[in-house]
């Protein structure tokens, strides 16, 4: 069963310097473990929402806006695609992700054929 993990965090959240410094190493550790267990297929980090452009086409006209498609408190900071036996395993994997302890992780199954 394939799931997309949308890793979300408030970009402006007040984390202490020390906390912030820990995230990259902890994430790296998580990626290594999940790759070794054959769970993480792929994934990546995204640049800040201030770099986002939202594209719409209406009446054949391309409309652009600066920023994300929805203003929310937390933004998607990255994603991982994981292969798990079931939702319980996916929950365990997501709960281990370092961002889960201050942000949130949406676990969405891929649509079944």
């Amino acid at each position: 069963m394939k799931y997309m993990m949308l890793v979300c965090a408030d970009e402006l959240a007040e984390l202490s310097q020390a906390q912030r410094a820990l995230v990259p190493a902890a994430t790296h550790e998580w990626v290594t473990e999940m790759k070794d267990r054959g769970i993480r297929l792929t994934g990546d980090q995204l640049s800040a929402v201030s770099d986002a452009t939202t594209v719409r086409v209406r009446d054949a006209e391309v409309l652009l806006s600066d920023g994300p498609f929805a203003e929310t408190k937390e933004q998607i900071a990255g994603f991982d695609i994981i292969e798990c036996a079931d939702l319980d395993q996916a929950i365990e994997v997501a709960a281990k992700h370092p961002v889960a302890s201050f942000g949130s992780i949406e676990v969405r199954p891929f649509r079944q054929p």
Partner: protein
Amino acid sequence: MTADITPAVDEAFRAEWGKVVATLIGMTGDWDLAEECAQDAFAQALRVWPRDGIPRRPGAWLTTVARNRALDKLRRHASEADKLRQAAILSPPDDPAGGGVDPEDIPDDRLRLIFTCCHPALRLDSRVALTLRTLAGLSTAEIARAFLTAEATMAKRLVRAKQKIRNAAIPYRVPPAHLLPERTSGVLAVLYLLFNEGYTATVGARLVRHDLCTEAIRLARSLAGLMPDEPEAKALLALMMFHHARRASRVDAAGDVVTLEDQDRSLWDRSEISEAAAILGAAARLAGALSNSGGPVPGSRPGPYLLQAAIARCHATAPTAASTDWALIADLYRVLIELVPSDVVRLNRAVAVAMAEGPTAGLALVDELAAAGALDGYYLLPATRADLLRRLSRAAEAALSYRRALDLAVNDAERRYLANRLAEAQAAAVAGDGSVAPLN
């Protein structure tokens, strides 16, 4: 055979529905198909049992009929996926020859079913609805009525929940050891919520809805049987039964609330109370948590339902309100607060302390809670405060608190009770003597 067979089918339905559905889900992995086929099997029982008599093992009979029905349906609409499922039904893992299922070997899958229905990835209201539908066999219309929701809304909720189970691959299993304690308390919480919704309806005109209480007790009884080594499952069952045993005395003929103190104890169901006491005793022995006097054993780790059941036992077994062992109750609440540091529990302890040591001691604890802003919006805080003030003959202050409680209460029967108390307190305050007729 001419005897009316309906009661026997009703009885089988109550006893076997959950088992048949659980087994069929285990075999087919298809929740809708499982429910449909279980329904067909019971319909067939209504036709066949009057003619042939009730089978020796109604459950095995119903499961076999439902299973054959599932095979029929899968054959008729056979796709590749269905053929695989068909093969799975024909050849359960313990029967590689594919010779069908020996009814003696049909596993009781209800535990898998209840853990799946109560999975924390489902919304709480969906967990409750799904448990009532698939385990207790209530119809969508009955569940909708119980929660005063439109039937279409309830149907949608059930469909969504089953879709999520399928699409997100919520596993159909009893959780592994490392998840079991947490998930078990999740299941117990759903059953207790179900009971409480029946016990004090949060909406509507009637205070108690016995149908929900009865279903909750039935489910708790199954769970206690399926998890014989789990003290909290037994304790929850005992807790519900202690409360339920008082059902005849909790509201008067006019549908008004009668407080525990004023309840006619001769109306309490003695046999249910003694059964509950025996079940609690068994739970306490498993947990090693209660002394012979009913108090907590120092150093033991009783669960929250065990403590609540022990408190409920104190009430249910006291011959009169005046002889209630309030000191023991206050002590049990003290231990419960360490385990469940909730303000509602603190409020209950305040009441017990007031009864054991006097209203002044209780009022101090209630005012501490109020000062912390802990239970803002919860009507029982001002209602309790009002009651203690009334006992201290501070009628004018009591009236103010009754007024506040009345503004917050939602159940009609409880509102009537508070309105009556408010009127008494106002009359006493006007009379200026500060005295009010005592509750009893």
